[in-house]
């Protein structure tokens, strides 16, 4: 792997992403719209809910608005990251193949995409975490930021994987919406989770670990090492699969 090529492609891929106007717009609009909707539609009523990852079983009592804000911050970072992951891998796929014919190794291009994705995830996560300060201050702010980064990693790498498998952008977006909407946007809602049947099923979904970390970081001062391992595991599996499929698809024959 050439550092010089990695450097050049990372810079040029970043420029291409930023010049795709919809990406920077969505990066600001999605968290803002989600928060606005939560603010307009939730009350300050205190609602108890179960924190699934804590043993022994533990209930937290916070306002419906605060718990929804945490849930939607995880969901918005997840949605955005998976979309950007998809865009990064699918944008100019044929041109990238020409680059590979001309000398790039598929891993160099994938690594550059991963670096750009990571930078965007950190930016979106920090921006979203700072925006939540307008409403309340999470108990462990840095850990809360980190939980959002993990949500971005898990779903960003899922976006890369979908982009490697599916050819069309529309089909890719449908795949993303299918999982992200059901998982990050619905089942991981702590209020839903407390009353859900088959909780074990929900625990195996990708957004479970970052959601749990975000909830604990927002409302408790406890450690969450177990969910950290789960998030990293999911990210590694998605990134690994994306790498293999991308390589097989793009290599010079």
């Amino acid at each position, binding site marked *: 792997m*050439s550092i*010089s*090529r990695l450097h*050049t*492609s990372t810079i*040029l891929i970043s*420029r*291409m992403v930023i*010049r*795709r106007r919809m990406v920077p717009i969505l990066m600001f609009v999605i968290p803002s719209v989600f928060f606005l909707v939560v603010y307009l539609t939730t009350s300050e009523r205190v609602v108890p809910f179960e924190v699934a990852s804590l043993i022994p079983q533990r209930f937290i009592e916070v306002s419906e608005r605060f718990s929804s804000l945490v849930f939607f911050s995880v969901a918005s970072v997840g949605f955005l990251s998976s979309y950007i992951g998809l865009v990064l891998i699918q944008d*100019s796929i*044929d*041109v990238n*193949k*020409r*680059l590979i*014919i*001309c*000398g*790039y190794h598929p891993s160099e291009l994938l690594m550059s995409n991963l670096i750009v994705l990571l930078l965007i995830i950190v930016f979106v996560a920090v921006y979203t975490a700072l925006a939540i300060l307008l409403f309340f201050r999470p108990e462990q702010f840095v850990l809360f930021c980190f939980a959002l980064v993990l949500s971005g990693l898990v779903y960003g790498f899922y976006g890369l994987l979908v982009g490697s498998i599916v050819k069309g952008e529309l089909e890719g977006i449908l795949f993303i919406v299918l999982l992200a909407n059901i998982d990050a946007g619905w089942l991981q809602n702590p209020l839903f989770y407390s009353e859900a049947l088959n909780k074990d099923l929900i625990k195996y979904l990708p957004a479970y670990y970052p959601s749990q970390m975000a909830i604990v970081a927002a409302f408790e001062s406890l450690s969450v090492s177990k969910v950290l391992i789960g998030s990293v595991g999911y990210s590694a599996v998605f990134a690994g699969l994306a790498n293999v499929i991308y390589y097989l698809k793009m290599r*010079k*024959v």
Partner: protein
Amino acid sequence: MMILKGQNIRKAFGHRTVLKGIDIAIDAGCVKGVVGENGSGKSTLVKILVGFVKADAGQLRVKGKIGYCPQEPLVFSRLSVAENFKYYASAYDLQAYDKEQSRYYKYLMEFFRFGQYKNDKVLHLSGGTVQKLNLAIALMHRPDLLILDEPYNGFDLETYQAFLEFIDVYRKQGGSVLLVTHLLTDNSYFDEVYKLNNGVLE
């Protein structure tokens, strides 16, 4: 010296056999053409020769560097002309500080008249200018063999004539060319012209 030799190259898509055992050889300093109807398998043959597509059977030997100019311009539309050059220069491992390389880069910029468009995004360029960029990228690393798939789609008459002259100069400098097209108006630039018909080169 032989630059490229392909033997018994076969390719099928599903039940449709596109190439039925193609034999092709290109020596240094020679210009060859392949003509054929639309859908005759010309682009498939080119993609196999450059490593874009895998042949079902056959052997392919390549000595030296290949420059590939695809039919559809494969350039980054959200990057400028200069940024596209930079990206492909890194792919070819060309050093920016190499004086000779810099001179050649300037020569390509002037030859294709990119000066005024250098910092324009490809998205905003005309089809002909994008096609010229597509071709210039194939030439950046001074290949031993230039493989061109319908290279002059969108060229105006002046650029087309300049392109043919360029091919002549390129050949005199020892470069080889394989040009694939559905329409050939002037055979005088070619050492040999094949016709791809029914999956076979005639």
